[in-house]
């Protein structure tokens, strides 16, 4: 196909007349284009530097995580004194045997009293739980006799 000369004379004349019209030039000069191009290039460079810094930071963090020293397990033999362990293990039970609570003492005495009568009561005064002997007037027996006297029970008038 021919690039030119394909138009008949009237069309060719019109095309030549149209071609003589000059398109309006742009208002922006080449200097403005260069300025915008410079700004654009600077922005691209800043973005590139930020990307490089981000990648370097990420690589550094990853390297630090990968090369982190593994924790070393140290094996040591620890000797513990035997007495300490036995005391610790036995102490609660012993303390319970030595220092029964007041409710347990009461139940024990009540059972002994029901089963054996007054002869079943212990010879010594029961503890109150806090280490002090119970007051004598707290458990008066029948006819004014102290039920918890050290030698069995006896009239209160015989006591000093």
């Amino acid at each position, binding site marked *: *196909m021919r*690039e030119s000369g*394909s*138009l008949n004379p*009237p*069309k060719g004349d*019109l*095309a030549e*007349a*149209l*071609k*003589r*019209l*000059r*398109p*309006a*030039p*742009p*208002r*922006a000069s*080449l200097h*403005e*284009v*260069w300025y*915008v*191009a410079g700004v*654009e*290039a600077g922005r*691209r460079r800043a973005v590139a530097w930020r990307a490089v810094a981000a990648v370097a930071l990420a690589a550094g963090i990853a390297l630090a995580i990968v090369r982190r020293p593994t924790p070393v397990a140290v094996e040591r033999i620890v000797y513990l004194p035997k007495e300490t362990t036995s005391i610790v293990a036995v102490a609660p039970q012993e303390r319970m045997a030595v220092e029964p609570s007041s409710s347990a003492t009461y139940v024990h005495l009540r059972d002994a009293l029901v089963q054996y009568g007054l002869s079943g009561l212990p010879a010594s005064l029961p503890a109150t739980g806090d280490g002090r002997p119970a007051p004598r007037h707290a458990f008066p027996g029948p006819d004014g006799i102290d039920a918890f006297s050290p030698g069995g029970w006896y009239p209160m008038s015989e006591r000093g």
Partner: protein
Amino acid sequence: MSKPPGDATVAELFGAHAPALLLYARQWVGAEEAEDVVQRVFVRLLTGRRLPSDPRTWLFRCVRNEAIDAWRSIRRRGRREHVAARDAPGWFVPSPEDGLDARDAQAALNALPPEEREVIVLRLWSGLTLSETAAVVGVAVSIVHHRFESAIEALRQKLEAPCENQDP
């Protein structure tokens, strides 16, 4: 693609093709947006790493793509560009030496279908050959030739017709 575009090359391209590129961009958008389109294309040329093998065709193809994108964006924004386009400068510089009136020519061109108007602008004011025009538009050379013939015929009928209001 060969080497980075030098300042002299870009200045030469700007001086030779900027008016035609602006006229080409105005086939889709108004004057202000067309200026931005041409500027963006030259900025892309300046910031590019290599000069295109055929810079002229590359420039017109880029302007076409940018202008169509801008036209779509304007259409989405609600056609505000049309209000400003009424006070926009004309497409051509009026000159008494021209055989045709610039405003009449612009009006006749505006009446053409967009695909024919695009071919006319590329062929007459950009100086592109038929094959280069076909490469820019993205159609076959025969289609470009057909559109050019049809457009010239339509312009001839419009511009050579006597004015209806003119007294005999």
